[in-house]
């Protein structure tokens, strides 16, 4: 699975955070752990996006996309200098 993993950006519905979480970052981490114990979290976003980026397998990304509170799961994409 580690070899298969690529980075994805996961946009979350922060307003749907279950009340048992006090920090959105804990909720993001729990959401990630619910589909994989070993997936690496890269960043959490809070100012210009709500969500996180993580290394996932394509299957994990598909599962996460159906997870409560997940708005979208986008593959990390390359940009180039102009």
């Amino acid at each position: 699975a580690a070899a298969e993993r690529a980075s994805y950006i996961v946009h979350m519905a922060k307003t749907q955070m279950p009340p048992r979480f006090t920090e959105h970052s804990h909720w993001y981490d729990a959401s990630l752990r619910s589909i994989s114990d070993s997936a690496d979290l890269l960043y959490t976003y809070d100012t210009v996006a709500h969500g996180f980026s993580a290394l996932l397998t394509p299957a994990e990304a598909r599962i996460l996309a159906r997870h409560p509170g997940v708005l979208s799961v986008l593959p990390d994409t390359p940009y180039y200098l102009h």
Partner: protein
Amino acid sequence: TTRTPEFLGLDLPAELVPESSTIADVVIGVLDTGVWPERNSFDDNGLGPVPAFWKGECVAAKDFDPTKACNRKLIGARFFSKGYESSMGPIDESHESRSPRDADGHGTHTSTTAAGSAVTNASLLGYAEGTARGMALRARISVYKVCWAGGCFSSDILAAMDAAVNDGCHVLSLSLGGGAADYYRDSVAIGAFNAMEKGVLVSCSAGNAGPGTATLSNLAPWITTVGAGTLDRDFPAYVVLGNGKNYTGVSLYSGKLLPSTPIALVYAGNATNSSNGNLCMPGTLLPEKVAGKVVLCERGINARVQKGMVVKDAGGAGMILANTATNSEELVADAHLLPATLIGEKAGNAVKAYSISDPNPTATIIFGGTKVGVSPSPVVAAFSSRGPNSVTPEILKPDLIAPGVNILAGWTGAVGPTGLPTDSRRVEFNIISGTSMSCPHVSGLAALLKEEHPDWSPAAIKSALMTTAYVKYQNGDGILDVATGQEATPFDLGAGHVDPRKAMDPGLVYDLTAQDYLEFLCALNYTSLQIAAMSKDRNFSCDSRKNYAVSKLNYPSFSVAFATAIASADESASATVTHERTVTNVGSSATYKATATAKVDGGEVKIAVEPAVLSFTETGEKKSYIVKFTAPSLPSGSSGLGRLEWSDGKHTVASAIAFTWT
């Protein structure tokens, strides 16, 4: 930037000395390849203390001591590499460091263009000598390194935008782009949307994929998308042929000169065993055929400076590099490692014909140094990406153009001016071209407007830059497109070439809020999930009873799309498209009158503005109007242009209009 301030009308002596005053403190965040902080362009002399609102940081790394790197000019420096390293593997620290330090040069160039301090006696190897300075001399710079040797990744860019807005940046400058994608899939568009909502203007480069149509990136309407034009400065290098004919090219070569009398010339396509040897790709030239000669190479595939290196390595004495149809007559200067010049397509064809047909062809290159006052200028660069907008054709992009050809600005100490590993020269300034270079000009100018008008929204600042841009030279002729030699259209230059002095006092602005952009997304039929992902899950949903339309977005330009009649019986039918706009008075009391013009081959477009007169009695007052565009049915693919101007006699508030038939 030894020329652009003067070219843009910013050459006021008072501008050269930063002062602490009542002018607002503005921070420009530059997302790029990092920074070389030791450059004099980051000198903080004359600047006041770091503003109290600033929450950013200057990170420590083994080659980056924050106590020495950051100061009152460079107030932040961070790096973001987790996404890059996940995709591309660990950073090769023998070539670049895991730190904000710029191993490439691009980031130092863009940040010093936006807001670098004034440095006297700046030049590249004696070329473009003068005082180099960023557009916003008093603005602070914070750099966010997101681009590495193998590219830039959206997870890192989004993390940097997150940090930059949280740090307190007022303007973000991104000289990068990806493919054209729906806005909810484009991380730069998503980050820019939420930055905009927090009052941050996001300026992005349009891309260098021109002159083909629909080649733009960074297409979201809340982004300021910047194309590139030339300056009135050139670096001529003349090709003298043995047949007595001369051609003018450009070059930044500095070193041992060729003999003044022509020496042997060979066409690279005749000095190779490779089918693409004419391109002077590595390993394709036969040394026995090029040694001691001037070699004619053709542009394409590999870097221009690399072609020079290939000629040099094969023993060539000099290089004439010729454009092909792709680049036409556009001349971009390079600091070649051997005597070399770039010539246009027409001259290239002539030199090629001579080198092939003459039994003993000869040539030499004479270098002419720096020339200013070149006319006409600006002209739209051939490489500058063009509209229409491939995601939302009803939004005209690019928004405007700014200087982006042969721009001198700060450079890294890690590589030479060509960027080639074999280039051992080190320079404080370099001259390069791209919409990457025009973008930070506009970022700096936006910062100047923010300093003067701290209460203006990002949309108001963008509107001021766009509605005061010019599309004609002083003699009344339209700005040319170097790709065609003809007058440029709104798809090439958007609202026109930026004019910062007029932008300071635009009279009226087309303002927009996040709510307006959300309604725009409703007009695009975005789902609630897509809108939520774009807007941080705000409490918003489209109202099914409301009539949303892209034509209602209060954009400072117009892109009017007519549907082509399918049935032949409808050929004589006309269609009317209505746009709605609201202008906000940012001047004193005034009465504005509308005039509109249109130019379409094959038909006449009628433009009716209602009301055609708007009177304002106080600053901040808003007035709405509608514009009806009535046009005949034209074949699909037809296009046209126009202009709507509101004038009170003192201000001219101009909107570009583009017509398309689909």
